[in-house]
């Protein structure tokens, strides 16, 4: 078959939960590999004795990361032929340092342990019972797999089976096997499930065959395995618990207790959203868990963004996916920057924008007063026009608005173009290259009532906001649209037009914004907040005088937020990566004291037409009242006072600034 006919979007598998172990291995890239934060290497994850908590926004790759360390993926890895000296899966795992047990309870299950006239205490007990049995079931699943691949002999498990029956409160029968233990566990779980079903229709007591307390099976079952199965001697287990934020506060108390008391043979690796701890308490009164003492923490975005290795990471992620497409593999197309372009070409974009403006080519000159101190608008345009680069024209408009004369402005521009080393030319260069180029493009697009385009690998890296899932989705949508609209360019030339990339970015941003309103915690408030904050940033990007270029971050004193529901809503915004906290404390604005600085997730940038990059400098300072307004009101006034547009300035005694 022609490989073009078998083309499949390389970014179509985006959900790590849906991937097979083989896909996980094929697409695996360690997000921390090669970064300066070298403490998070594979050896450390397998061997560190204390629990490690991995926090990150939705799509940062936590599930991919945890699943990679699970038994099913590592077994797949070691079952692949590795030259002549191939050892058993169990030997390989022992050499790695641990066997990973991946545990994920979906939100629908976790949230079902409440209500229906059953007391909260009782539900917590039932949940504890369920968690113990669920983890137990997963240990046994691994044990069965080790039996199946010959790492363990069934004959050597008799003592274990007998012990497991005792542990589970079941009478042991001669000839029982591991499969029978599994059946007992399933029966015990069924008792809980039946109760959950029946409790919706009638009042009843939960009376299990045997009640399990915390640790009975999560630690009891592996301890028994190690003691009674010779092949497992000295093996360690990692409990890889994903989506910890799904557990309620009282459920987390139960699990926090397990975290606080890890065993030499079993410890935890937790995956959770930012702000995913609802409580640090344990089930023992006055005992709580503390970062640094009871567990170490890694925040995906912090490490990734701080380390500047993020682009390389995304590039490697994309390369693996591109090479999984036979057509691209044949052509050796593994470089995502070839498809998307490395960086934006703003000059070309500006020219392209004007091409489509048949009648309104001069619209971006409109901020110039029709009759100002510098003369009539047409006269000024004659001086500062530069058909070769509309962005120069835009900068010239800015200079004129800042009271530079049109003649001096033109001179500075020409000095810069002709590389004459004059002070004015140098200032022009600084303003154009270092300060305002992107802002000018935003302003110009807004004056022409067009979208600034979002395209290129560099821009997609910014838009993804440290979240690999966002990057993959941006690519998926771009490749999908390209396949539909410009299949030839995609498959024959290996290029995706900026227009298509922008459409993908805009669609994705809009879809994500819509999804904010569906977030189960404070979704409506967060939707209003995002819209208001985005529109507020947008107003800064439409300011003719570019007083605060590319303003896209804000500060708020988290500890001062009240009442509590707003604090909780703001925390939920962080948990769902609607808002991201900058890794380091920063000055809110030049000259201000240091504090936490936040950004809206950059994925919304195309919707609001704001800069996706971090420029620093000015941050909008939100008071607590403003934050409440942003969450409560459909529309709020921008904190930026609108500059007067095209008004002649008042006559001045002083000459214009030169």
């Amino acid at each position: 078959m022609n490989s073009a006919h078998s083309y499949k979007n390389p970014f179509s598998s985006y959900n790590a939960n849906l991937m097979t172990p083989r896909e996980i291995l094929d697409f695996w890239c360690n997000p921390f590999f090669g970064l300066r934060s070298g403490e998070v290497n594979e050896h450390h994850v397998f061997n560190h004795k204390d629990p490690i908590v991995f926090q990150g926004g939705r799509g940062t790759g936590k599930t991919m990361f945890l699943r990679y360390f699970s038994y099913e993926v590592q077994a797949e890895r070691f079952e692949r032929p590795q030259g002549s000296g191939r050892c058993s899966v169990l030997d390989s795992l022992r050499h790695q340092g641990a066997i990973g047990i991946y545990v994920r309870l979906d939100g629908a299950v976790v949230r079902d342990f409440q209500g229906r006239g059953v007391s909260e205490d009782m539900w917590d007990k039932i949940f504890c019972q369920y968690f113990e049995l669920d983890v137990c079931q997963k240990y046994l699943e691994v044990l069965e797999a080790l039996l199946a691949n010959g790492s363990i002999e069934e004959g050597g498990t008799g003592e274990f089976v007998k012990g497991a029956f005792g542990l589970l409160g079941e009478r042991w029968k001669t000839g029982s096997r591991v499969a029978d233990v599994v059946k007992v566990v399933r029966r015990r779980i069924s008792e809980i499930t039946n109760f959950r079903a029946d409790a919706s229709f009638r009042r009843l007591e939960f009376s299990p065959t045997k009640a399990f307390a915390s640790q009975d099976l999560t630690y009891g079952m592996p301890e028994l395995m190690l003691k009674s199965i010779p092949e497992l001697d000295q093996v360690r287990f990692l409990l890889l618990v994903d989506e910890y934020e799904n557990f309620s506060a009282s459920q987390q108390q139960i699990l926090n207790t397990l975290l606080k008391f890890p065993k030499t043979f079993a410890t935890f690796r937790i995956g959770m959203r930012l702000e995913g701890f609802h409580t640090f308490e344990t089930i023992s009164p006055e005992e709580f868990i503390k970062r640094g003492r009871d567990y170490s923490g890694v925040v995906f975005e912090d490490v990734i963004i701080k380390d500047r290795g993020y682009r390389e990471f995304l590039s490697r992620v994309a390369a693996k996916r591109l090479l999984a497409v036979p057509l691209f593999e044949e052509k050796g197309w593994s470089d995502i920057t070839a498809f998307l372009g490395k960086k934006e070409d703003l000059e070309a974009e500006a020219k392209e924008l004007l091409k489509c403006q048949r009648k309104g080519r001069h619209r971006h000159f409109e901020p110039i007063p029709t009759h100002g101190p510098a003369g009539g608008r047409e006269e000024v345009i004659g001086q500062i026009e530069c058909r070769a680069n509309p962005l120069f024209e835009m900068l010239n408009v800015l200079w004129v608005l800042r009271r530079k004369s049109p003649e001096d402005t033109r001179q500075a521009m020409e000095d810069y173009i002709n590389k004459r080393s004059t002070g004015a030319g140098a200032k022009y260069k600084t303003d154009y290259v270092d300060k305002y180029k992107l802002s000018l493009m935003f302003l110009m697009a807004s004056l022409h009532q067009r979208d600034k385009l979002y395209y290129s690998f560099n821009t997609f890296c910014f838009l993804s906001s440290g979240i690999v899932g966002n990057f993959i989705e941006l690519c998926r949508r771009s490749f999908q649209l390209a396949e539909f609209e410009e299949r030839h360019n995609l498959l024959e030339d290996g290029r995706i037009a900026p227009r298509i990339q922008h459409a993908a970015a805009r669609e994705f941003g809009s879809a994500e914004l819509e999804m904010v309103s569906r977030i189960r915690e404070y979704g409506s408030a967060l939707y209003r907040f995002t819209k208001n904050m985005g529109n507020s940033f947008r107003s800064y990007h439409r300011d003719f005088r570019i007083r605060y270029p590319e303003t896209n971050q804000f500060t708020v004193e988290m500890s001062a937020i009240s009442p509590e529901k707003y604090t909780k809503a703001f925390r939920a915004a962080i948990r769902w990566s609607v808002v991201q906290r900058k890794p380091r404390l920063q000055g809110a604005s030049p000259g201000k004291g240091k504090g936490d600085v936040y950004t809206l997730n950059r994925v919304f940038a195309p919707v609001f037409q704001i800069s996706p990059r971090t420029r620093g400098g000015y941050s909008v300072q939100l008071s607590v009242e403003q934050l409440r307004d942003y969450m409560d009101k459909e529309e709020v006034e921008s904190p930026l006072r609108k500059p007067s547009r095209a008004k002649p300035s008042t006559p001045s005694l002083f000459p214009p600034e030169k």
Partner: protein
Amino acid sequence: MDTRRYEMTTIDAGTGSGLTPVDKLLIAAGSDVRGHRIATAYATNKVDAGSLLVFEFDERTEQLSSAEETEDYRGYEQLGMPVRVVRGGIADPPSCLKELEKPENVLSREDRVALDITLFTKPYFFWILKYLSVYVGISNVSAYYTEPESYRYSAGTFDSYQSTYGPLHVREMPGYPGEGRAVGSRLLVVLLGFDGQLSTAINDDVAPNKTIVVNGFPSYCPKFKDISLVNNERLVAGARSVMYAPAHNPFETYNLLQHIRDKREDAVMTIAPLGTKPMALGACLFAISNEDVRVVYPLPETYAKKTTRASWRSWRYDMDVSAVTAGG
């Protein structure tokens, strides 16, 4: 294979043809005109409906904003039938249990019961059918459903359809937790609706190893099948297969689910009935007869007041809820 015949009949509301005499007719109160069509047909054609058990939901009552809406909502009072009102919270079906078990409302296994699912939310009629089947012990139930003539799109475009608003909580349908087994392959079957946000939320929450998408085809109107695919683009792109079942036929949905089940016996099956109510009814019957199947649903903060326009055909589905199995 154990098989049984099923029956589905169109109703002529003018003559009453297709209506079956019952002891209790269960309906949900609502201001959508479709909701009273069957009860009105019983009354005007003098077909015996016994008493009318009307489920009223606090959330819907609070939303009533005009005298006209209130009149529509309480339209059942004008039918001249004996009425009993059962009140509950729309988000919490078990909340009506207390009122349902009052001596004057109580249902018995000998009762001939019909349920008009048109204005019930899906979690509610799932809960009621299981209640009737497992806890009352009724084996035969007739379900009525009146199709909409068309749907409302808030911004005029197909992708702007929204049946629910505000934050979503993905929940298990009360009474349908499945077998609770968390190991092995997880299979999610999504009966597609128009609201793409719901399917994405469910897929993310359940995180299955495999997702099968079932689209309603033939649909009420030819374009509907395409709208559901377009609006669920993200889910459809990631799903491993798309299958079809007629939008108006619960029994075909049942059979399709059975077929899927037969091919993947080992998988832990979860169903998300987001499509038409008849398709959801098929999923409900399937889940009642396969207790290990889990049903999940996104519970919104609020439901859209009106999502449809006018009435189209009305159907009666006769079901044996005690032992429904595949076949036709």
